[in-house]
Structure formats: C-alpha cells, structure tokens
C-alpha cells in the first residue's frame, strides 16, 4: 500500500471525529471518500496532509510513517474545497509558487520554472490566462488552477476535498471526466472527497464509505454497489426504499433478527395488471407520486401499505398517480443494526423456474 492509515483516531475537544480509521491505497490509484456531511472526510484528508495531527494511529506515505513529519515536508498536493488560490497572485504565480519554494531550497536553476508552469497551464487548458487574478476566473477555471498548482511541485500524493462542490451541475460532469483523465495521465496516487455517489462511482477506482468518523466499507464501485457490507452502506448507496414489513410482499418470509429491508429501484419490476407474466409472485401497487426525470420516470408506489421507489422506462408511456400496477420485487437487502443479508424472491425460484 502506497498510502496507509492504521487505527487513526482524532478528537476535537470531547468530540471524536475519527474512530480507528484504517485503509490503504495502491500506488497510482484514485480513491473516493464517500460519506454524509460531518462524517470526517475532510479530517481524514487533513490528517494525511499534516494539517491535523491524529491522537493515535499511524499514517504511512510511500512506506514511511509520517506522523511527525510537518505538512511542508510530506510531499502532498492538496486541492481545497474553496480552492484557496493566492488571491494577490496571478494564475502564473499561483502555479509557480511551489516550484520557486522548492528551487530556493535546492539551489537549482530557476530558469526551468516558467517552462514547467506553461506546461501545466497547457495541461489544464488555461492558455492565455496566465496574467489573470483568481477573482477574474470562473469557478471551473479556478478549479483547474488549483489542480495545476497542487501538481506543480510533483507531489507523491494528491488530495482533493470536494473538488467539484462549488461548480454547477453541467460543468461538474465535464470536469469529472476531465479530472479522471488528468490523474490517469499524470499517474499520481489520489484521494478525493465527495458526498455525491455518482461522482465517486464515476471517478474512483476504489470507494471508501465513511460514516460518523469510521470506515464502513472499502471496495470497487461495483462491490460497494452490489455487496454492501454494512447496513449503512446498503442504505447510503443508490436511491433506496426502506420497508419494515417486508414479509407482506410476495415471496419473502420473515427472517428472525432482521426487521428492515432496503430495496433498490432496479430490484423492482412493474407490469400493467392485464399483462402480468408472474401472477404468483407479484403484488398490487398504486402509483402515489410520479416525477418526470427526463430519461426515466420516478414512481413512488404504495405496495401493501409501504412505499417503494421504482424507475419507469418510458417506452411503455407515462404513468400518473392513481394508476394501478402489478409489482414484482426480485430481491432486497435485509438489515439490522449490524448485518446485511441479500434475500431473493422465493416464489420466483420455486413456482415458475421456466421464466427465469
């Protein structure tokens, strides 16, 4: 592991912000820290950078324990949530800052700085903006400057704290793809923080789910999505419905110790009452709310007195509230305080194997 945290704890006064946080990152990978607001994501990044010091635990970068190494010697690049561009310096000077500090220390030639700065400005696509001040840039442009500035001193690790939070939705999507390409091109080990799961799934090689100062699960986006390890992970990922009375649905028996179920929209299939291919496995559903989402329609269904969210592909036409449907739930995650278990619809398996 190139970057590693081992049982890191951090308290602010009496508040424990990090609880036994342990995870590692392989060299050259991009990891996304995903979690709700206040879960400790920023605190993890700041501890890695040396801006906060853990109360206990070990932080390793490139095999070296860095707990006692000050921020300025850790070789970590940081893109702040607010970008923190130097407001009294031009774009050029912002990006050159880290290089000139380094050159001063090594006593090497300063002549190379402009060359490297221009290289970076070209890399992030800001040619012609060298002389502007941060206040004269758009949000997306500032983000690029922050990125170039962090990369300039060639850090071993790049940390990004909600790099797209201050940018509007459309530019955000473009920048995501852009960032992923940039990081891959430079090949730098990176950790970025987000509370947007689409962003994490799209950009990260691995996702770490953070909740209340602890790590819930670490894995590839597919693993996280398909095999949530903890109840929190099951609920947090995807747009889930939660049921307490899951055994009232066709094909699910109550299981001792599990009193709740989480159902993802893709586990639910809907049919018109007159065209139900699985009459023995479906329940009656009533459309309570219908929201148009562009490519799909999001339906809130009332099934056996409980709410289930499903996405309606539009090829069969729009549905509206009051419409009656037949609803098939193919699987669900059963959760209690500690565990998650996948439950399949038993009636599908037993009664009508031909259709599966």
């Amino acid at each position, binding site marked *: 592991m190139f970057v590693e945290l081992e049982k890191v704890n951090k308290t602010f006064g009496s508040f424990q912000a990090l609880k036994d946080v342990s995870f590692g990152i392989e060299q050259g990978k991009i990891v996304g820290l995903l979690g709700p607001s206040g879960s400790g994501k920023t605190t993890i990044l700041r501890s890695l950078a040396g801006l906060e010091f853990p109360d206990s635990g070990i932080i390793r970068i490139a095999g070296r324990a860095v707990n006692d190494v000050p*921020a*300025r010697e*850790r070789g970590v690049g*940081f893109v702040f949530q607010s970008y*923190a561009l130097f407001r*009294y310096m031009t774009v050029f000077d912002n990006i050159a800052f*880290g290089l000139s500090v380094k050159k001063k220390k090594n006593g090497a030639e300063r002549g190379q700085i402009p060359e490297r700065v221009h290289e970076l400005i070209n890399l992030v696509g800001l040619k012609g903006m060298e002389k502007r001040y941060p206040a004269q840039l758009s949000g997306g442009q500032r983000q690029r400057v922050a990125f170039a500035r962090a990369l300039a001193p060639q850090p071993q690790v790049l940390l990004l704290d909600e790099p797209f939070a201050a940018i509007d939705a459309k530019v955000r999507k473009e920048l995501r793809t852009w960032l992923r390409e940039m990081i891959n091109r430079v090949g730098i080990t990176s950790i970025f923080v987000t509370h947007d799961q689409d962003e994490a799934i799209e950009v990260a090689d691995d996702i770490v789910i953070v909740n209340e100062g602890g790590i819930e699960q670490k894995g590839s986006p597919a693993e996280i999505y398909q095999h949530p390890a903890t109840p929190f992970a099951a609920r947090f990922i995807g747009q889930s419905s939660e049921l307490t009375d899951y055994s009232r649905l066709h094909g699910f028996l109550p299981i001792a110790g599990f009193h709740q179920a989480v159902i993802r929209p893709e586990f639910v299939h809907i049919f018109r009452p007159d065209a139900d291919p699985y009459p023995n496995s479906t329940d009656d559903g009533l459309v309570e709310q219908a929201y148009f989402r562009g490519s799909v329609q999001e339906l809130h269904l009332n099934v056996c007195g409980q709410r289930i969210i499903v996405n309606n592909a539009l090829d069969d036409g729009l549905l509206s509230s009051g419409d009656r449907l037949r609803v098939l739930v193919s699987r669900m995650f059963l959760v209690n305080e500690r565990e998650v278990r996948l439950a399949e619809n038993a009636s599908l398996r037993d009664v009508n194997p031909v259709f599966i």
Partner: protein
Amino acid sequence: MREYSGNIGKNALIILCFLFIVIMLLIPLISVLAYALRQGWAVFWEAISDPYALKALKLTLVTTVWALVINTVFGIFAAWALTRYRFRGQHIIETLIDIPFAMSPVIAGLVFILVFGRIGWAYPILQQWDLKVVFAVPGIILATVFVTFPFVSRELIPLMNAQGTDEEEAAALMGAGTFHIFSKITLPHIRWGLLYGMILCTARALGEFGAVSVVSGHLRGKTNTLPLHIEILFSEFKLTSAFAVSSILVVLAIIILILKNIVQRKGKSEVQ
C-alpha cells in the same frame, strides 16, 4: 434611511454634524495657529527654535519611533498567535490587549512608578545594572508603548480572521516556511490595515500626555516631550510660545490625517 426621515431630517442631521465638527474641532485648531502667529513670524520662529523645544521635539520623535517599531512587531505577533493558533487563555489575552483603551493613561504611568520607581520591586534589580527607567527616557518609551499597543493588533485581528488559513495552509503544503508564508500570503492581505494601525499608533504616540507626564519627572531638555513642554510653557503663562509649539503638533497631526486618508482609500479600493 430616506424612507424613514424625509429630506428635512436628512439635511438637519448633516448640518448638525457639520456644525459640531466645526465648533468642536476645526475652530480650536485654527485658533491655535492664529494665536501662535499673533505676534508675527519672528516670535513664532523664536519659540519653536528654542533649544528646549527642539530637544522636546526630538525626544517625542524618538519615543514615537520606538513605540511604533515595538508595537508593530508585537501587534503582528499577537494577531498571528490569536488568529492562527488555538490555545488556552486565548480569550483572556484578547481582552487584555484592550486594557490600554479602557484604562486612564495616568494609571498606566503610576503602574510604571510602582514597578520601576524607588518604591517598586524591580528597582533593586535596575540599580544593580545601573539602569534608570522612571524619570528617564526608557520610562517615557515604556509608557508610550503601553498606551499605544492595541492599535496595530486591533486592526490586524479582524482582517486575519476574515482571511482564514486556507491560503497559508496551501502554501505550507507546497513547502513554504513560516516567514515566506507571512511575507507572500499574509502580508499582501493585511498591508493596508497594518499601515493604518501604524498611523493611528504614531498619532497617539506623538500626543501622549498623561502616562508620560507621570513617569517623566519633567526634566527640561532631558525628559520633556513636546506635549509636556507645551504644558510647562502654558503654566508659565508663555501663551504665544505654548501655541507656537502646539502648532508643530497640529501640523504633524494634519500630515498624519492625510496619510491616513490615502491609506484608507487604497485599502478600500483593494477590497473591491
């Protein structure tokens, strides 16, 4: 405001302010200059080129420079410590900084007598090193430093709080040392506020009377600052001389006001 009080109210208020300033501030200043020049330029010139007056002016300037340097350095350190670190007693220190604003300068002078004077606990130590504080120049400088020390830090603390630590942290992560960070990141942000605080500090140091009066001992030509010298002239009924020397302070005050205005305007235009 216009919605609440019509044009009449507005104009009345403006005239009132104007009158107040003219009566309370402008007329007295002009009177000082007029009185000083009442007996003509020759007398005026004689009064301000009097060796004691010149020595007092010199001492005032020396004291002001000391106070300015010490308080600028202290003010920057204090503002840095209070805005960039968290520690026990932070609020207490922040409150203590304001003591000179809250306390009468005479008491400040008396405190120095109590500590460094013949009755003070530090007196024997000073004797050992053959140092004189009270009734000597060091005492005057100390008293002036005491009275003026909140000006710089009070200007800087809100500015540095508003600036936040993001940019400094970013610079530190790129390998910059503390001094480099201060001069390249922090200073550009606070420079006009710093200058403004320094100007206020200078103005106050030039005119300080109460605290200095207690510790100086009024030794003519030795421990008399300009305000003390004026007071002596006045109590000896040398009114023309007193006002002539006063006019030096008035002119200095006007120069400082102009500087203050320039700095304030620059600072404001930079914010926008």
